[in-house]
């Protein structure tokens, strides 16, 4: 994966596949500690301990279409290469929290990338999913929740807002919001 934002897309797809209705995503940039932390927490079905412990093994997967699963192993490797690590906390029946830390200034850390597109796609393609995004950069914070966006766009023709409208709105809100809060365009984060 070329961007951390793509890993986040991948983690949220895992959450969706685990039957989650609510996903909390956070990105924390801490310059003083030299650390970038990405966290995705869901209320999906979780994993039993023996599966959670081995989830970063590429030859462990719950899918039936193939015998390999590369999402978490790739993220674990990427985190490790930049001097960070991956931690999976999972409680069966309650949910899963995946925390990846990266060395902020390490040369092998992938860029955060196009967070605006990741969030815009996720919200547009999953109208039933509650997503909360928190982006912290050295104490400042940008927060976006799917319910706020949907409320602002709501009551069109009695139905939910269409995907293209949600996409365009979220993309703009994240790009501009991160520029205002952190001085960095949300569609090309370093």
């Amino acid at each position, binding site marked *: *994966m070329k961007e951390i934002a*793509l890993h986040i*897309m*991948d983690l949220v*797809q895992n959450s*969706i*596949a685990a039957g989650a209705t609510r996903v909390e995503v956070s990105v924390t940039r801490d310059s003083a500690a030299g650390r970038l932390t990405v966290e995705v927490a869901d209320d999906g079905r979780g994993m039993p301990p023996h599966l959670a412990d081995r989830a970063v093994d590429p030859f462990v997967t719950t*899918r039936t*279409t*193939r015998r390999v*699963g*590369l*999402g978490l192993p*790739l993220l674990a490797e990427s985190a490790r290469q930049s001097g960070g690590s991956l931690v999976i906390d999972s409680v069966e029946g309650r949910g899963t929290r995946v925390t990846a830390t990266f060395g902020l200034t390490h040369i092998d850390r992938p860029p955060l990338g*196009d967070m605006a*597109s*990741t969030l*815009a*796609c996720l919200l*547009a*393609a*999953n109208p039933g999913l509650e997503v909360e995004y928190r982006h912290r950069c050295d104490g400042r914070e940008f927060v976006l929740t799917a319910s*706020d*966006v949907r409320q*602002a*766009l*709501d009551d*069109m*023709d009695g139905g939910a*807002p*269409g*995907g*293209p*409208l949600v*996409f*365009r*709105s979220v*993309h*703009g*809100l994240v*790009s*501009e919001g991160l520029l205002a809060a952190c001085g960095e365009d949300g569609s090309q984060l370093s």
Partner: protein
Amino acid sequence: MVKSLDELAKIRDKAKEALNLRAGEKETKIIVGMGTCGIAAGAREVMAAILDELGKRNLTEVTVTQTGCIGLCDKEPLVDVLRPGQPRVSYGRVDAERARRIVTQHVVNGQIVGEWVVGTQS
């Protein structure tokens, strides 16, 4: 570029007007493969292009959803189009440009783009 929630309200009103012009396209569904394989191959850019193209054409009632890996990883990014009265069509190796043509040619005009089809299912 949308800068605030107030601005969203304005966009909403505009979209409301456009909504009355449409009929019949409601049941069309586009599914983008968003497993690890799809994402690594560029599925997010494909989905972004589809949503952008639908938005430009005011086709806001076409449903776009995502799914996980279906086992055809070497053909990713995969895009399925389900149009009423037509078989389900799976397109493979889709990029942003191909995605836009699938919207204009298949979703809007009902003509399947044969050269990129990897499977059909009625």
